[in-house]
């Protein structure tokens, strides 16, 4: 069970959180302008790299907030968390 640093509440155990997938994938404001290829990419293509990954978590059994985290997928170590809207550190 990971220990996750909620930017609002501090370190909390993983079971209080919900994983939210890759971060920084903004939903297009005009989906109609996307062709099938671009739309497919938006829907389905995610980074799946070894190493640092920016991802979303929600402190669903805590403050309820979504936030972003940088985690190394080869060690599961967090390199920091930050609020939605803040740039990736």
């Amino acid at each position, binding site marked *: *069970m990971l220990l996750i640093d909620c930017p609002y509440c501090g370190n909390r155990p993983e079971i209080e959180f919900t994983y939210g997938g890759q971060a920084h994938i903004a939903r297009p404001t005009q989906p109609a302008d996307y062709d099938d290829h671009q739309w497919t990419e938006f829907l389905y293509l995610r980074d799946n790299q070894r190493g640092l990954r920016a991802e979303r978590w929600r402190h669903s059994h805590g*403050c309820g907030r979504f936030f972003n985290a940088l985690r190394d997928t080869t060690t599961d170590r967090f390199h920091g968390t930050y609020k939605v809207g803040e740039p990736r550190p």
Partner: protein
Amino acid sequence: MAETSLYMRMLPPMSRWILQGGADALSAAARAWPAGLSSEACRARGQGELHALWLGPEEFLLLAPPDHEPRALREALAGMPHSLVDVSHRQVAFEVCGPDCALLLSAACPLDLDAAHFPVGMCTRTVFGKADIVLWRTRADAFHVEVWRSFLPYCTELLAEQVQN
């Protein structure tokens, strides 16, 4: 040991609201609500029987005696984008108390409940086994627990199981 000291008691009915809003609305609310709203995360503020529990950066749980109408609050918030929703019946509250109350809760609550890490006045949403609760330390040896009403039997049974242990 279950017989000798009280570990759990139901708390009487209360009025409850979930207050949410942006910074302006919340600071207006903080002025209108007698004890104010904590700007520090995970802290409760209270005066008499009126309490405001920080649940999230834009979310507070307000507690008051039954049938309390937060008129001042409503007036202060009028015209400001916010949400105030009555949840008096959504949840119920019980208290876990006694010298071992933190230990008892630790059977199913993953937080560090040591007084240094979870002091009196701290409150937060968390989990108790497979239920979602709001945990609020009201005294060194007492926790106020809010839980959605249908999860109450689960919580009390889980506690009873721990008391046996």
